[in-house]
């Protein structure tokens, strides 16, 4: 009986549904919801923090740790806390649609950053890199590097449950499709996991010792790729006959260093500070009733390589500091 009463009490405590609490802060408060924490996200968080501070606003931060349900709950909490706007990197691009709609219905703008929800119309504003443009640039570089000769390419794939992973792969594939001399020997889904990148590279090199190129669509993959290449004595600078052509995307300090060390041929840097600045500006403007136009922006990455890294360094966030 005691347990039954306790259970009912617990249920009543948990379940009392009501309207969200009123926004009490006079200052602008931006609720920032991240899908996960990893080196690139840490850089994004810093860029957002800088942009929010520059706008004289405050932030509330939550990390969903790769859990769509937790992200929904965290955003709901921010809504009940009365934040001025939400800036989110969605973990589940489908669930993000309904999450954004319910947030907007509660009168709070919802801005998605970096990772686009499947329906862009569901959010107040989206800004991100252009994964397709980046993938295309990478593919075209491989076509140029192959120069009409037989060229075996390993394609590491990021997370196939999100827009960046899907389009960075698809558009690279499309760009090399016409080049019949290029053979994609393996497409390895990694879920953005460097260890899986390592295993995929190891397997491919074992099966194809004459591997000529590796597409690493995010910088953290380079850790795994380099580990394998070093072990096989193939981690040599651009220009060395044993060098494997590598193209990567992100523009992190790791990627910049790899370019400076001439270990990779091309890096496509995501314009992070600009993305963060636009996301925060749109969130604040929308929270004050302003109209956001355009509703979505995709900023193409900045390509750079060993030949021009010194000139480009000031534009690449990972090359600074």
């Amino acid at each position: 009986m005691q347990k039954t009463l306790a259970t009912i009490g617990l249920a009543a405590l948990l379940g009392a549904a009501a309207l969200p609490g009123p926004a009490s802060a006079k200052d602008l408060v931006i609720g920032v919801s991240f899908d996960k924490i990893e080196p690139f996200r840490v850089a994004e968080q810093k860029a957002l923090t800088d942009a929010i501070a520059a706008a004289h606003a405050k932030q509330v931060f939550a990390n969903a740790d790769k859990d769509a349900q937790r992200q929904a709950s965290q955003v709901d909490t921010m809504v009940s806390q009365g934040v001025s706007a939400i800036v989110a990197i969605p973990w589940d691009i489908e669930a993000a649609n309904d999450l954004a709609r319910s947030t907007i219905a509660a009168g709070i703008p919802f801005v998605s950053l970096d990772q686009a929800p499947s329906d862009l119309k569901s959010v107040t504003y989206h800004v991100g890199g252009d994964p397709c443009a980046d993938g295309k640039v990478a593919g075209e570089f491989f076509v140029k590097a192959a120069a009409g000769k037989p060229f075996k390419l390993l394609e590491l794939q990021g997370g196939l449950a999100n827009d960046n992973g899907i389009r960075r792969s698809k558009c690279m594939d499309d760009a090399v499709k016409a080049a019949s001399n290029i053979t994609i020997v393996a497409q390895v889904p990694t879920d953005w996991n460097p260890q899986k990148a390592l295993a995929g590279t190891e397997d491919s090199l074992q099966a194809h010792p004459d591997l000529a190129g590796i597409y690493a669509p995010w910088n953290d993959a380079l850790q795994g790729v380099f580990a394998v290449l070093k072990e096989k004595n193939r981690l040599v600078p651009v220009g060395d006959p044993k060098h494997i052509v590598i193209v990567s995307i992100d523009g992190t300090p790791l990627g910049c260093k790899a370019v400076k060390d001439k270990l990779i041929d091309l890096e496509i840097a995501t314009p992070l500070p600009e993305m963060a600045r636009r996301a925060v500006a749109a969130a604040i403007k929308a929270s004050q009733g302003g109209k956001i136009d355009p509703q979505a922006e995709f900023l193409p990455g900045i390509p750079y390589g060993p030949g021009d890294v010194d000139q480009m360094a000031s534009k690449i966030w990972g090359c600074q500091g």
Partner: protein
Amino acid sequence: MNDDTAAPTHAARGRARRLSLAPLAKLPMLPVLVIAFAVLSATIDGFTSAANLANMARLFAPLVIAAIGMTFVFLLGEIDLSVGSVLSLGSVLGAFTMRDTGSVWLGALVVVATGAALGALNGVVIAWFRFSSFVHTLGVLVTARAVAMLITGGHSVGRLPVAALLFGRGSFLGLPNLLWLAIGVYAVAHYVLRHTIVGREFFLVGANRRGAVFAGLAVQRTRFLAFLFCGTLAGLAGACVELRLGSGGPILGDNLLLMAIASVVLGGTSVFGGEGGVFRTATGAFVVVMLDKGLNLLGLEFYDQAIVMGLVIVFGSALGGHLYRRRVGRA
């Protein structure tokens, strides 16, 4: 004041201490829950607001449903590692059904049926083919997740009927609909375990399987039922998550497995079987959800949150084990 009250004998003090510790031994997380709730309520603005409690309830419901299923398995001293993947695969199939037929209920039924089917498979293989539950359910974890990825190409499946989200985020009589489902599951599970012969067999088989065989109990049937219940409830938890999010996905249940295990262990159900119950699991799940929400609202960094959660799991389960040994030792 007589002598008894002024200076109780050593024996009387011992009896009093045992009496006061008796509920604690069975529910080691209850004081943690009460203290944590009081502290978080006092330190976080809006922690006890109705909106936040309703939000916590929606997070709590699928977790406690899956953890109750896991409790049946733990009572036998077994483990089911496949619940997260079963949830994911079920959610994918259910989402396709909802989207293609427009029927939320048919979709939800498919999610639960997927869980039941995989649970029955686990039960048959483990009970009658004598496979190790750890190894077999690990295989199902990997396979079910891979099938879900294969079917969807890694994408989540959204654009479900509006009714799905309306139910998942809606309330009835002031309580979130999902919490009603969890209360229903709790009530049935509690009744089965405490008031039916089948339920008592879970404790007997878990405490001493060999003895249960000699006593003529249907040991294999009990093991089968544990995995069937676990799979079915993982499916129902999947339906809850799907209805709340408005999408299903191949990685939707990835985090659920560890949280469900943490809830059961924290609640005080023994990993060796024969000892435990669903009320304990409910307290464990509530502690998990409350800490998850509370630490986040306190503004702790993600890493700090994980450390606190890990420490609570370690010390909570150690406390539960200590109190259990004391109780068993006395008996």
